[in-house]
């Protein structure tokens, strides 16, 4: 299911450099998630005992209490659940940048799992709650430490799995 590392699945940086770089906790709990993004893979905990999906990662499944739920790759396809357009810069690197859009999305193939990201494209575009989006990997290979963000963009009508709801 892994996507190719081509222009259709990767994107340039949406926000200016200088925001905090995401890293796993010192105990490594979320390392499989962050490492997965670097390889264009969305890795979500998927309990081997009861099948529950869970994000962010935790040491046990919240439903059946099996420890160390394994990470499975899921398709980077989702639906917009909510959004915001941020204007006021609260970090020095955003001074003068202008508005940007953040979305909370629900993954199509991992029930109950939400992720955050920026909605790529014109930040002044109307954001349709319920619209289908696909994940795009934003690599920061030269950062120290290197990292990858998962961003989202609206899907053309012809490629949607189901109508917008």
């Amino acid at each position, binding site marked *: 299911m892994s996507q190719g590392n081509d222009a259709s699945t990767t994107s340039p940086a949406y*926000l200016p450099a200088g*925001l*905090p*770089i*995401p*890293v*796993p*906790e*010192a105990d490594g709990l*979320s390392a499989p998630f*962050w490492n997965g993004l670097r390889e264009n893979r969305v890795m979500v905990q998927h309990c081997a005992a009861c099948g529950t999906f*869970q*994000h*962010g*990662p*935790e040491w046990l499944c*919240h439903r059946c209490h099996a420890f160390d739920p394994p990470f499975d790759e899921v398709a980077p396809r989702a639906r917009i*659940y*909510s*959004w*915001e*357009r*941020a*204007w*006021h810069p*609260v*970090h*020095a690197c*955003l001074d003068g940048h202008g*508005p*940007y859009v*953040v979305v*909370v999305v629900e993954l199509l193939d991992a029930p*109950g*799992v*939400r*992720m*955050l*990201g*920026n909605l790529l494209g014109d930040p002044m575009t109307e954001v349709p*709650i319920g619209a289908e989006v696909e994940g795009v990997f934003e690599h920061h290979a030269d950062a120290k*430490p290197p*990292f990858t*963000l998962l961003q989202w963009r609206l899907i053309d009508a012809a490629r949607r799995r189901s109508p917008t709801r």
Partner: protein
Amino acid sequence: MTKRSLRGRVAIVGIGETTYYRHSQSPDAEFKLALKAVLAASKDAGIDPREIDGFASYSNDRTDPSRLSAALGTRELRSTTMQWGGGGGGSCGAIANGAAAITSGLADCVVAYRALAQGEFGRFGKAPTAPTIAGDMAYQAPYGVLSPGQKFAMKARRFMHEHGVKQEALRAIAMASYHHAQRNPRAVMYGKPLTEARYDDSRWIVEPFHLFDCCMENDGAAAVIMVPAERAKDFPNRPVYVLGAATGSDHRVGANAHNQPNYASSSFSTVAPHMFGMAGMGPKDVGVVQSYENFTGGVLMALAEHGFFKPEEANEFLQLENLLAPGGKMPLNTSGGNLAECYMHGFELVLEAVRQVRGTSTAQAPRNDVALVIGGPMVTPVSNLLLGSEATL
């Protein structure tokens, strides 16, 4: 077994605060602000502050109770409680924990307090500048979700989307706070009224929040003194009793990365029924409401979750005239609250509820026997508090 409850067991007999300042403007150190507030509350109660034997606070307040008790020269130190969690989610929890200490015999005279000097210690509304981030904020900060407003705007947006709530409902909440602040000389926004046009023209901070939907950041301190109900009449002020209180949040609200199942929520869906259950009351019994405005969207959801209106009735209910003292059907944030009196992390709302029950508010509600305080919507844990007069016991 008797019902486990705080109802009628504890009385608030003293309140006090410092001058409220714009953020970073306090001439006093944070600890000194706390001392001033405790002394003001003691004076209001007519007690010797050396009698205080319990301390309660929240949000990792930096004012350590052992240092406070040493500075005040209290005869002894007994109960010390800190409500876990950030934001103003513990503003009522501090009262609940102090009241629980009194009810259980762990202390006889508790002061609950909050002190903030942001010039001394840094602001809430600015992002941390560390180069890397782990844990819950790692899923947010790299996407520009750094400040409390940016973390909560999407909850409010989802609620507004689900229930058709309009921007004008948020505007009415903001205007109620500003309206009441014009009658309150303590208020930082005293003399600075807000009009519909000024709200509409104000810049976006993060949609759906305009500038005036967001709380101020301030310096100051406030304190509340509690004693067992049996002693309530030994003090000069009309006693104000704890009728109910609750803390916490719904199922898995603490899930990282915006994964709480009940997303479009102020976190009060379970906490509100617990408080009303303890008090043996419901929203119709409440005459006046102080509801923590970190952002107006939190007030919107918190009022709905406390049963004042159904979500789909929000536009109709949240009209300015309904929210004003004395004529409105549910006077809201009658001191100006976090938006316009002072962002004392919501503790100013507890003091205002006490004033309402005493009958000494600058924007007095006519139905003032039962006053509600709602603390810190959208965080976890949150907390709430129902206060009442002797007639409600």
